[in-house]
C-alpha cells in the first residue's frame, strides 16, 4: 500500500464518520428545534389517534423521561444520546411497548438489505451492459428502440411502477403474491419450500426496483461509452487490429464503468428512498414497512431508529464503494 492509497482510504473513512456524525446530530436536533416536549407531543398524538389504548402511558412516559433526562442541559442530553447509540440502545417502541427498537430493526434489516442488494446489482449490471451495447456503432435498430423505453422507465418513480406490477402480475394474472415477505402461515425453516416462498414474494418488489433503475444505468453508460469511444486509445486499439469484442469490453466498458461506479455512490441515496416506498407498497417486511407502520402509529423512537439506520447503513455502503474504487482504477492505487 502506497502512501497515497492510505491517504485516500483515510479521507474516505473520515467522510464516513462525518456523515454519521451529521446524521446523528440532525436526528437529535430536529425534534428539539420544534416547539413542545417531544415525548409529551408523541404520547399525546399517540393517544389522540387511539394507537395506545392498551399501553400504560404513565409507564412509557416515565421510562422516556428517565432515559432521555429531558430536564437535563441539552449538551448532557446530546452526550447521553451518543452513549445510547454506542450501546445500540435506540429506545423502545410505543406501539409495541416494551419491544426494543434495535430488535425490530434487526428483524427488518436482512429483508431490506437482501432485496436492495440483489435488485441494485441486477439493475446495475444489465443496465450498464445494455447502455454499452447501445453506444456501440454496430447497434441495430432493434436495440436502439430501447432508448425511449429507458427514458420512460427512469422518469417514473419506481414505487408507482410497483403498483402497476402488483395489479398486472398479482391481481389480474395471479402469478405472484401481491404483498408480504412470506406466506403468513409459513414457519421459517431452511428448506426448499421456504426459499421458494421467499423468492416468490421477493420477485415483484425486486422487479420494480430493477425496472425503475435500469434506465438510469443504461443511459448513463451510453453517454459514458460515447465519450470513451472518442478517445485516442480506442483509435489506437483499432489500428493495432484488436478484435472488436476486446476493444468493446477491455478498452470501452472498463473505462466507462468507472464513471458508473461514481454514479452508483451518488445515486444510492435516492435508490434507498425509492426502495423504502416499494417496500411500503408491497408491505414487504423490511425497514421501509417498519418506518411506514411507525409513522402511521406515531411510534416516535422507531421512526428515529429506522431513519438513523438508513443513513448510517448508506454511509457504510458508500465507504464500501470507495474501497472498491482503487481495485478498478489503478491510478488511485499508485
Amino acid at each position, binding site marked *: 500500500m502506497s502512501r497515497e492509497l492510505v491517504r485516500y482510504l483515510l479521507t474516505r473513512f473520515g*467522510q464516513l464518520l*462525518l*456523515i454519521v456524525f*451529521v*446524521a446523528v446530530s*440532525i*436526528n437529535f436536533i*430536529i*425534534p428539539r428545534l*420544534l416547539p413542545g416536549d417531544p415525548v409529551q407531543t408523541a404520547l399525546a398524538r399517540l393517544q389522540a389517534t387511539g394507537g395506545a389504548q392498551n399501553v400504560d402511558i404513565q409507564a412509557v412516559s416515565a421510562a422516556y423521561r428517565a432515559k432521555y433526562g429531558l430536564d437535563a442541559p441539552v449538551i448532557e442530553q446530546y452526550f447521553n444520546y451518543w452513549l445510547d447509540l454506542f450501546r445500540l440502545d435506540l429506545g423502545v417502541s410505543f406501539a409495541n411497548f416494551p419491544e426494543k427498537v434495535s430488535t425490530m430493526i434487526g428483524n427488518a434489516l436482512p429483508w431490506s438489505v437482501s432485496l436492495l442488494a440483489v435488485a441494485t446489482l441486477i439493475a446495475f449490471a444489465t443496465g450498464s451492459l445494455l447502455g454499452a451495447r447501445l453506444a456501440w456503432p454496430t447497434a441495430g435498430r432493434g436495440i436502439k428502440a430501447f432508448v425511449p423505453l429507458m*427514458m*420512460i422507465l*427512469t*422518469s*417514473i*418513480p419506481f*414505487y*408507482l411502477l410497483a*403498483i*402497476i406490477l*402488483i*395489479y398486472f402480475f*398479482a*391481481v389480474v394474472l395471479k402469478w405472484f403474491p*401481491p*404483498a408480504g415477505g412470506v406466506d403468513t402461515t409459513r414457519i421459517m425453516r431452511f428448506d426448499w419450500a421456504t426459499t421458494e416462498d421467499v423468492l416468490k414474494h421477493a420477485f415483484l418488489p425486486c422487479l420494480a426496483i430493477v425496472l425503475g433503475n435500469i434506465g438510469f444505468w443504461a443511459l448513463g453508460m451510453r453517454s459514458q461509452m*460515447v465519450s470513451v469511444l472518442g478517445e485516442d486509445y480506442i483509435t489506437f486499439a483499432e489500428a493495432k487490429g484488436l478484435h472488436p469484442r476486446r476493444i468493446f469490453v477491455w478498452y470501452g466498458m472498463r473505462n466507462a464503468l468507472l464513471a458508473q461506479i461514481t454514479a452508483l*455512490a*451518488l445515486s*444510492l*441515496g*435516492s435508490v*434507498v*428512498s*425509492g426502495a*423504502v*416506498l416499494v417496500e*411500503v*407498497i408491497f408491505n414487504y417486511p423490511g425497514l421501509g414497512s417498519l*418506518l*411506514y407502520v411507525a*409513522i*402511521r402509529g406515531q411510534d416516535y423512537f422507531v*421512526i*428515529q431508529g*429506522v*431513519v438513523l439506520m*438508513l*443513513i448510517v447503513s*448508506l*454511509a457504510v455502503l*458508500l465507504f464500501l464503494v470507495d474501497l472498491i474504487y482503487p481495485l478498478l482504477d489503478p491510478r488511485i492505487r499508485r
Partner: protein
Amino acid sequence: MSFLTSLRRNYEQGRISGVLLLGLGILLAIVLFSAIGPMFVDAVNAQVGAVRPRKPPGAEYFLGTDSQGRDMWTLLIYATPNTLKMGLIAGFIGVGVGTALGLIAGHFGGIVDAVIRVISDALLTVPAIAILVIIAGNIDRMNTVIMALVVASLGWMFTTRTVRAQVLTIREKSYVEVARVNGESQWEILFTEIMPNLMPYIVASFVGTVSGSILAVIGLEALGLGALDEMTLGNTIYWSQQSSAVLRGYWWWWGPPIVVIALIFIGLFLTSVGFDRFANPKLARR
C-alpha cells in the same frame, strides 16, 4: 418578429430539438389541463361523499369514483395544480438557495467554501426521505406550502455543486481577468461577468430540482405525511393504498394519477435532455 426569426434559426441549426419541443409540449398540456380544467367541473364533486362511491369509468363519471365518493376526474383536475405548485415552490427556493451558496462558495473560497462543500456533499449522499420523514413527521399542521418548504430544505445541494464548479471555471477566464484589471468590484464581477454565464446551468438545475421535489413530495405523501385534507396526486395514491384499491381492482383510482405523474416526470426529463442540447450546441451536432 426578431424573436421568431431567431427561434427559427435555432430550430434549423438543430439547437431546438424535437425532444425539447416534446418535453415542453407535455408540460404545457399538463399546465393547461390544470388551468382550464376547473372551469368545466364542479369542485363539490371532489369532496368526500359527493357522488356514488366505487363506480367504474362510464358515461356518468368519466374516470369513475373512489370508495369515499369522490369524482376521480374532478379530483384529478384539482390535484394536479397542487402537486405542480409544490414542485415549483420547492424548485424556486431550492435553486435560489443553491445558487446563492454555490456563488458564495465558488467566488469567495476559503473556509466558507470548505464548510458549504462538506455539508452539501454529506447531504447529497444521505437518503433524502430519511431526513424529510423526521422533519415532516414533526410538523403538526401540514399544508402544501409547508410541504414544499420541507422538501426545499434538501433541494439545494445539487445546484450548489453545479454552480460552485462553474464559478471556479469561469473566474479563471480571461474576460474576468480583464474586468478585474479594469477595476470592477468583487460584486460587479460576480453579477455582471459570472452570473450571466451561469444561466444555462441554473435553468438546467431548476428543471432537475422541480422534478426531484415532486418526487420527494409524492413519496412523503404516499407515506401518509402529506397534507391529507388537500387534494394532491400523492394523496390520491395514499388513499387508494389505504383502501387496497389495487387488490380490489379499482384501477381507475390509482391509474390516472400515476399517468399524470408519469407525464409530469417524462415532460421534465425530456425538457432537461433537450435543454442540454440547446445550451451545448456541440451535443446537437452529434
